[in-house]
């Protein structure tokens, strides 16, 4: 008998959130605070020259930060440090941050954004990941192949599996980039506490933000404190840095609190997207409904930056066959740079796209075999002791059958 576990405990943050008492970063005001606004690239791929002198001359503008003002490393990124805090010589996507205006009021900061002069020497962009993989495609990151990651599964012999199959289904599926659409657009405030810079933002991983802020500012981690007040949803969209370093750099340089708020349009530009996947599936089964072989190629568009590309395409590959036992499996998943918005973590993290393909494949094969879709799944579904496509044994708490039976008993053709 449990005292707390398993209870329908009322969520502790519910009252503050529904009554409006919860403090989000946007709700925080400090005496003498300044206001920051980000200048972003309006083109997807270009070499740039930046002139902020006119903007900085406006009365009420305290400073306009660019790459030359970075006190540590001009980079951040969860896997590869391929994001620049401020783009210095080149932009790789629409929305890349180039400068951060700090002014006495948000209105003055907005005015100053219009006075920033960026000379764009445009480079041909690449927006289709398949084209981006071709020889001679424009390089999103100079000197680097656009295809940054390749994951493989080789289990059994798919050719032999297809040769023995009575039914083979081949199809290509496509899923687009989508946004996390969390309710609360990014906002934050940063201030000094002695020699420590405090950054108050909505983030999914405060300790990692601390590392990235410290590196970019060139200070020890102990001089960075991240406070994480109420968060209005995240879904993976608050894993990559957005305004954290801009705020910390500004407040530490100017010794004053600095606040920034993105509106919805800027929020769309600032954070990652779900990877668009192109998924080629070939699935073979016997006439009595046993899956024999699955061959999958996945091409994932990570846009201008890597973020979690390796982990996402790896997870996509590992989950490509679905919750079914398949003796012969060949999977190739690729992560590719383009000049699209950058993709990163989003709920499901590479395991959300493949079901769009593998579950339709299951229905198509069932229909070809004249079998009920549930009955066909049950012939192949993971059970205790099943071996996955990566050779892993599922030895306990394997409930795919119970889950599928539960929903099929609720909704089926007999109880319309």
């Amino acid at each position, binding site marked *: 008998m*449990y*005292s*707390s*576990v398993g209870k*329908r*405990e009322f*969520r*502790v*943050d519910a009252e503050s959130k529904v009554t409006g008492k919860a403090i989000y970063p946007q709700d925080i005001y400090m005496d003498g605070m300044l206001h920051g606004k980000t200048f972003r690239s309006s083109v*997807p*791929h270009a070499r740039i020259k930046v002139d902020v002198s006119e903007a900085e001359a406006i009365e009420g503008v305290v400073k306009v930060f660019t790459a030359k003002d970075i006190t540590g490393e001009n980079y951040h990124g969860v896997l590869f440090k391929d994001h620049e805090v401020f783009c210095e010589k080149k932009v790789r996507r*629409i929305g890349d941050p180039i400068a951060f205006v700090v002014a006495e009021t948000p209105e003055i900061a907005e005015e100053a954004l219009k006075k920033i002069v960026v000379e764009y020497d445009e480079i041909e962009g690449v927006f289709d990941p398949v084209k981006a993989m071709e020889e001679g495609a424009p390089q999103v990151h100079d000197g680097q192949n656009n295809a940054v990651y390749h994951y493989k*599964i*080789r*289990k059994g012999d798919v050719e032999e599996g297809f040769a023995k199959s009575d039914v083979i289904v081949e199809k290509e599926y496509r*899923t*687009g*980039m*989508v*946004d996390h*659409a969390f309710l609360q657009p990014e906002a934050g405030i940063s201030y000094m506490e002695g020699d420590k810079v405090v950054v108050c933002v909505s983030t*999914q*991983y*405060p*300790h990692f933000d601390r590392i990235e802020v410290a590196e970019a500012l060139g200070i020890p981690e102990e001089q960075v404190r991240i*406070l994480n007040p109420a968060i209005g949803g995240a*879904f993976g969209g608050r894993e990559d840095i957005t305004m954290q370093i801009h705020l910390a750099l500004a407040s530490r340089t100017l010794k004053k609190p600095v606040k920034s708020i993105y509106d*919805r349009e800027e929020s*769309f*530009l600032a954070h990652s997207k779900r990877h668009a996947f192109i998924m080629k599936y070939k699935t073979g089964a016997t006439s009595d409904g046993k899956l024999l072989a699955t061959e999958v190629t996945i091409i994932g568009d990570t846009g201008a930056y890597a973020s979690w590309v390796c*982990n996402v395409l*790896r*997870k996509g590959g*590992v*989950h490509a066959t679905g*919750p079914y036992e398949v003796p012969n499996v060949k*999977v190739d998943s690729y992560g590719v740079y383009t000049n699209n*918005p950058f993709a990163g973590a989003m709920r499901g993290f590479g*395991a959300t796209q493949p*079901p*769009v393909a*593998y*579950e*339709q494949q299951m*229905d198509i094969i069932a229909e070809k075999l004249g079998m009920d879709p*549930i009955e066909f*799944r049950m012939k192949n579904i*993971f059970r205790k002791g099943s071996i996955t496509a990566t050779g892993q044994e599922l030895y*306990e*708490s394997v*409930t795919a059958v*119970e*889950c*599928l039976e539960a*929903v*099929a008993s*609720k*909704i*089926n053709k007999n109880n*319309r």
Partner: protein
Amino acid sequence: MKKRGIGYGCTFYGTGYGNGFPDVSVAEAELNSDGKINVYVGATECGQGSDTIMRQIAAESFGSSVEIINYYSTDTDIMKDSGTAAASRQTYNTGNALRLASEKLKDRVIEKAKDLLNLNTTVGLKIENGEVFLNSFKATKISLSEIASSLGDEKLREEATFVAHSTEMDEETGQGCPYWPYTFGAAAVEVEVDTETGKVDIIRAASAQDVGRAINPELVEGQMDGGFAMGYGYAVFEDLNLKNGKIVNNRFTNYLIPTAMDMPELEKIIIEDPESTGPYGAKGIGEPVMTYVAPAILNAIYDATGVRMTEIPVTPERLLKALKESETK
């Protein structure tokens, strides 16, 4: 014409960072001077409910409800690194670390109680609702606040670390144990497709989610509702409308997400089969709850119309075009 169809989606999901990458959570528990339990974890509350269920996990060690817990999770100066609130890993990973820390603290509290009660063993002592007592003679008891005030400058504080198990896969064959644990789930939906407008409505829907054990069923159901809405949006609404790298649909007037008006009454079924490595048998479910929704809708659209939609989102324009093409075939 309005056509109805039924579809299913079934998925699995591997928890954690995966592929041998160190997946580490640190948690601390401490006896406060008033007898309450201070808990320090770096798990971020993004709306998923971690602030509530972490309290439940810690309270369980002390045989109490959540009121006994003072909870700290928002300041890098006072809590240690519990990893990111992602990969459906906080309940499993940080929940495990916190359970270990709470159990260690409980053992120390009981040890103190033994001394203060002049007993010769901790055997037979039980902790419940802020008191340590001898189970066979309940008048022999001492409250946690009395224990705390007896400590003087001494602090009872315990830390624990949990590392999830995963191995790096073979580079050539992809063989190995990339994730643990795996969760399972399924959805069934009945859709109504308006063949004149291309609009897809969901008439009925059910989701079943494997949870190992539900720490808080209410919050599991909340995740299932939210996951269904997000999967529904993914399947038929959400489109950035990218044009040469430009997001054309960059506000909620043109980037459409489902509203309460679109959501069906979702039947939610929690499937429990405790996972031995999870805290009280629990697995994380933040992500898997959305993975089976889109395929169920797509299969239902086919069942209704005979048209196989291989690209999402299935916007009215896309569906009408496909319906037209299927007619001319």
